[in-house]
């Protein structure tokens, strides 16, 4: 997983790519994201690139919504004053920046849960187009902090096309 914060209207850009490599648990990874979100005041779009599986259509997708099936929520506990106690996590997805990719609904699973074929079929019946482990909690934290999110989920073993990365780079450099 890699993530970077970019501004789309000429504000500053924060690179954080690769900082989460090798994490084992979301808790430790989440701290890094939370710190990034809470200490930054200039940028409002978080770009999250995550690996995924169980695709109905095996291609990189831009996330347009999510199902939180992790069984947890990173906002449980005393509320951090950077956001509301009961944040809305709708309308946080940036879907028009990368037009070359299809959009889809992400099912966020608990890390390590590997759904059976029957479970995968059920997940799709519930409206998800693919599964991933870490993107959904990250999105919830970002929404709580008032950020919008561009989420891209790439099938495991595939690489994101360089043209997509170029679009992101151009947007961040404006």
């Amino acid at each position, binding site marked *: 997983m890699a993530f970077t914060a970019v501004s789309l209207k000429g504000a500053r850009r924060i690179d954080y790519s690769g900082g989460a490599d090798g994490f084992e648990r979301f808790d430790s990874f989440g701290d890094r994201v939370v710190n990034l979100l809470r200490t930054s005041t200039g940028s409002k779009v978080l770009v999250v690139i995550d690996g995924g599986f169980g695709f109905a259509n095996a291609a990189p997708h831009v996330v347009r919504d999510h199902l939180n099936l992790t069984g947890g929520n990173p906002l449980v506990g005393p509320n951090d004053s950077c956001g*509301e106690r009961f944040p809305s996590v709708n309308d946080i997805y940036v879907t028009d920046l990368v037009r070359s990719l299809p959009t889809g609904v992400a099912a966020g699973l608990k890390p390590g849960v590997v759904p059976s074929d029957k479970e995968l079929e059920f997940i799709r019946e519930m409206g998800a187009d693919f599964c991933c482990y870490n993107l959904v909690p990250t999105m919830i934290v970002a929404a709580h902090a008032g950020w919008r999110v561009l989420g891209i989920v790439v099938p495991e073993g595939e690489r994101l096309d360089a043209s997509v990365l170029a679009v992101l780079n151009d947007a961040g450099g404006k």
Partner: protein
Amino acid sequence: MVETLVKSANQAVEFLKQVSRPVPDAAIVLGSGVKVLEDLPGEQSFSYEQIFGISPTIVGHAGSLTFGRVDGKLVAVLRGRFHLYEGHDWEVVTLPARVLVEWGVRHLYLTNAAGGLNKDYRVGDLMLLDGYRDHLSPHWKQTGLLPAVMAPAHPCANELSEHVWRVGQQLSGSDPEFRPLQRGVYAALLGPSYETLAEIEMLRRLQADAVGMSTVPELKTAAGSGTLAAAISVITNVWSDDAPIDGHEEVLKAAKAASERLDRLFRAAIAASA
């Protein structure tokens, strides 16, 4: 979360026995912004801090237990509850319900503010729970939520909820201003973030009628005990693809508007109970 100051259920029961020798005929737990059974004859109030050693942290949850009389019957009105999303563990969240069960309260009425998933519902409707979906229990954090989502809803209708239903029918039959009760399945999610539109669609496919972040811990606690529990959701918004999503302030406002009907329902149900 460290909960070292929280009293045990036994300690809380002992406290309540000292301040109210008779066991109340009924107890009512009020959720976000729900205001009913106020200014009862013979009122006597105690804070949750006094009884349980801890107070709710959420706006709209006063954190008090008031004894009073309804049609001569002793009732205990619990204003506010503890939630898992506050960081409390299951023991704390279920503490008030465990105390009421252990104390021997026969009838427990639960309320909550809920989002309407059923497209036939209107803001301000009262929904009697026939069943619930448990998407919030702590063990889902260990397994992930998939088993919960794939499981059927738990039925929770009982003698008390049927009594409430009959009283509601009588009220709506005699007063056109009293909206008929709805009956449906309540989906309890962990929160505190509100549901996404995709999650709302998923819950609709699972045939849930309303969604909130509470009540199921109390229903599970009372199940199989000598305490009959009936739960009512106050529908404070109805999810729609087109409508803006209200915040907590709007939830409190809508809950207040429906409270008058809920107040009449509870007073009639308690008065008519055996």
